[in-house]
Every structure is written in C-alpha cells, then in structure tokens.
C-alpha cells in the first residue's frame, strides 16, 4: 500500500438534501431489496392475488367489486409500504447504520427522500400490475383514466412510507413495529368508507374520518371510478393525501436525531 492519500475532492457540505446523495440512498435501498427476492415477489404478487380473490368473492355482484376493488387498489400500497418502511427504518436504527449515516455528511432529507423514492418505485411496480390485472383480466369497470388510479396509488404508497418512517421512531423492536400496523392502519381502514359510506357513520366517527388521510385516498379512487373527468373532489383528495404524506415525512425527519442520549 502507499502513503499517498487520494486527492482531496472537497466533499460537499452537509445540506438537508443533495440530489446525488438522495439517489445513492434510493439505489442502496433498492439494492438491499434485490438481495431479498422473496420480499419483492410478495410485494408484487400478493396484491394481485388478493384482488383476484375479491373478484370471485363478489362473483354475483360486479358493482360491489368495482367499488371495493378500486378502494383496495389504493389501500394495498399504503399498507405494504407502511410495513416495509417501518421495518427497514427500524433496522437502520438498531443496526447502528443510522447513527453512522447521521455522523456523515448526509442530510436527513437525503435519507427520507431516498427511502420515499425507492419504495415509491416499488409501489409503482406493485400498483401497475394490480391495476392492469384488475382492469384487463378481472373486468374492473373504471370510468376515468387508469393513469389517475396509478397516481393515487403512488401517493398512497408515499403516505404509507411516511407513516412507517414516523412510527418506527416509537418502536423498540420489530415486534412493536408490526403491532403499529393494526394501531395506525386499521382504524383508518374501518373509517375510510370501505365498509360503509362515511355519511352513514355515527357523526363523531364521520368527523374523525374527515381528518384521516386514508379517507381521501379511498375517495380519490372512487372519483376516478365514477367520473371520466378530473373532478374538483379528486384534486382535493390527492392534495390532502400528498399534503399528509409531506407533513408526516417532516415529522419523521424530526425523529432522526444526530445526537442521541
């Protein structure tokens, strides 16, 4: 070995977000996934299987399949990305790699955006396949553009990533992280209008459902289902979901501490 140090490349100063550090982080997260093909298979295939199952559960009621199927296309990415992100971030915290990264010139925004980008890409793959199978093979009757369904699904995935990142800060183990799924996701699932129209709920529950982001995710899907044009409600829905995702992502950034007790 030689004593010559490599040329001082003058590493870029730490900023909240550097595009090249963000993409490097996203590439690293995806590379980790490629070493785990079973997880990729589960992420991509399980939603397709479930939506197929649903189609034949409502074999005699095509209208019910349309309503619930479209909603589920929005809910799948939210739930799976929530689970994947909360476990992945928890691992990053417990393995010491998070502490190491934060002692390096990596912005917190790089880490969060890197995760969002990587899992967003997985969500696009997942949603594209589930949406395509639903529309072309299972006969899901969508009035609006399938691209809009995909857009809502992607935003839902980002919301799931954001929620997963946030709750992982409060989980000390993977057991706890998994238990946050029923705690954080199930109430939204019950109140989002999937089982019964939100207007028919107890007024208190309806009010609560008005402030839960998943209600808007499901409503957005239904807007595309029933309208060929982009409606005002649709714009409101995706704005609420995107805004909630950004809000929770910034809350997640606060839980990333460079100095820990």
């Amino acid at each position, binding site marked *: 070995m030689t004593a010559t*140090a490599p040329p001082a490349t003058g590493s*870029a100063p730490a900023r909240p977000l550097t595009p*090249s*550090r963000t993409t490097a982080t996203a590439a690293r997260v995806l590379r980790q996934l490629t070493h*785990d093909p079973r997880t990729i298979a589960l992420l991509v295939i399980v939603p397709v299987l479930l939506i197929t199952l649903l189609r034949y559960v409502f074999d005699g009621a095509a209208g019910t399949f349309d309503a619930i199927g479209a909603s589920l296309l929005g809910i799948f990415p939210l739930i799976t990305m929530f689970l994947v992100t909360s476990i992945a971030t928890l691992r990053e915290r417990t*393995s010491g790699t998070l502490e190491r990264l934060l*002692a390096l010139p990596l912005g917190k925004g*790089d880490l969060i955006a890197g995760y969002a980008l990587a899992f967003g890409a997985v969500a696009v793959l997942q949603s594209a396949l589930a949406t395509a199978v639903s529309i072309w093979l299972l006969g899901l009757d969508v009035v609006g553009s399938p691209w809009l369904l995909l857009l809502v699904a992607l935003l839902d995935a980002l919301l799931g990533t954001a929620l997963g990142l946030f709750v992982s800060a409060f989980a000390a183990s993977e057991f706890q992280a998994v238990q946050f799924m029923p705690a954080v996701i199930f109430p939204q699932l019950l109140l989002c209008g999937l089982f019964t129209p939100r207007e028919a709920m107890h007024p208190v529950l309806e009010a609560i459902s008005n402030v839960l982001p998943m209600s808007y995710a499901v409503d957005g899907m239904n807007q595309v289902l029933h309208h060929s044009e982009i409606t005002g409600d649709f714009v409101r829905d995706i704005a609420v979901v995107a805004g909630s995702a950004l809000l929770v992502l910034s809350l997640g950034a606060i839980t990333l*501490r460079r100095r820990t007790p």
Partner: protein
Amino acid sequence: MMNYEPGATPPEPPTDPPPPAIEARGLTVVRGDRTVLRSLDFTVRPGGITGLLGPSGCGKTTLMRAVAGTQARATGTLDVLGRPAGDPALRSRIGYVTQAPSVYTDLTVRQNLDYFAAVLHPGRAHRDARRAAVTRAIGDVDLTSHADALAGALSGGQRSRVSLAVALLGTPELLVLDEPTVGLDPVLRRDLWNLFHRLAAERGTALLISSHVMDEAERCHRLLLMRDGQILAEDTPDALRHRTGTRTVEEAFLHLVNARLADETAPPGPPLTQEASR
C-alpha cells in the same frame, strides 16, 4: 510499513505544533440520571495512536460518542480538529467505528462501501475517485477476497473490519475506534495494529482507540487511563510505567487505582498518597 514488536514502545512520531486532534476541558456527559463523564480534561495529539483504556462501563464509549458528535447532553468544552465536536464540517474529517459493526448485512462488502463513499463524495464527477477509495479501503482491512460476499455472511471479525473500512473511506484526519480488536484472533489483532501504525505514520491520521485489554496499551503512543467516568492518567506507556515504578501498563493502572482509592477513603486533611501528576 511499520511492524510492531510487543514489548517495545513504538517511537512517537515527530510532534509538530498543529492544534491538538481533541481537546477537552470540563467535559461532562449525563445519560438519564447518571453522570457518565465527570468533568474530563485531556488532550489527544494529532498524528499518533492514543489508547483509551479502562474497565467495561467506565465511560469509554460515551467519550468516543461525544468526540464523534453523536452524544446528546455533553457539556463543557470539547474541540475536535479545532472545531466544536459535532460541527457539520467535521462529519467528513472524522471516521467513527462503533463497537457493534454498523454495516448493511444484506449488501455485499463492496456495495456497502460504494454507498458510504457516495455519501462522502457524491456526484458522477467523483466516481473514479470513489472506486479507487473503495478498493483501497477493502485492501486496507484485507478483505479483497471477500469483496463480493454479503456482509451478513461474514464472520463477526470480518464484519467489524467492513465497518472499519467504511471509516477509512474519506481518509479521515481522526479515527475514533471503539474496541476494534475485541474478539479477534491474535494474528488478526496484530495485523490490525500494524494497519493502525501505518495509518498514523504514512497518512498522518490521529487515532483514538479504546480497549479494555491492557496489553494493547503497550502498542499505543500515548494513553488515557479511565475509570468510573474520570481520567486517571494521561501519558506515554513508558512514562506511566516509570512514574509508578511498575513493569506493565496493567500494573501501572492498578497502582493508580489504588492511589485514587486511598485518596478517597482518606480522612479530610492533606492527601496521603501522591496523586498521579500530569
């Protein structure tokens, strides 16, 4: 390349007047309701190996975390490479290796290093420099034949060397290594210490290395002896042995502990035992 022979104190590198690598004045750290570090004063010179020795639980890791800037609730003055510890400008100048290897077990050795290199020197413009730095770091820790193995498939000792390689990437001016040789076989331990000496001699790196194995003390240029959140002594191994009239650093450490205990249990009045002077 320097080879270290046990028993001989390595020659101290020429000491220029540059600012100390680490300077602490009244460094105090509280974790929970426990004061882990009690008003420490010490100096680590640049370009040499400083051993941080003391029993488990005496505060070595907390001190290192404070130097790396990851320890909350650190008060007093702690300057690292001329800047307050934790300063963002220090993040690419310090390499910090925690006791547990912090690498991604589901990536290969090279993929791990590629990512951390991209964090240190982002951008396409640095791609060739990054590749060279990664290859060099893998060679430094002698893992070239395992470069494409998953970190999770390596042995514990190999994985901690991957963690060390990550810290070597940016050619840091200060390396903070928390028990880097714990659990390694003697041959590997000797190789790592040879690497540490090469880093100090050829790259001018300052190294702060903790250990609770006293025989490693003989391999350091200078020592910080710690016990119970306090610095017992700060000197060269030779000077410590000489001053305490002992043959090994371990005996010197025990001598100093006894002197301190005698001090603490002594009735109020003039100190009975001569305190280790700096």
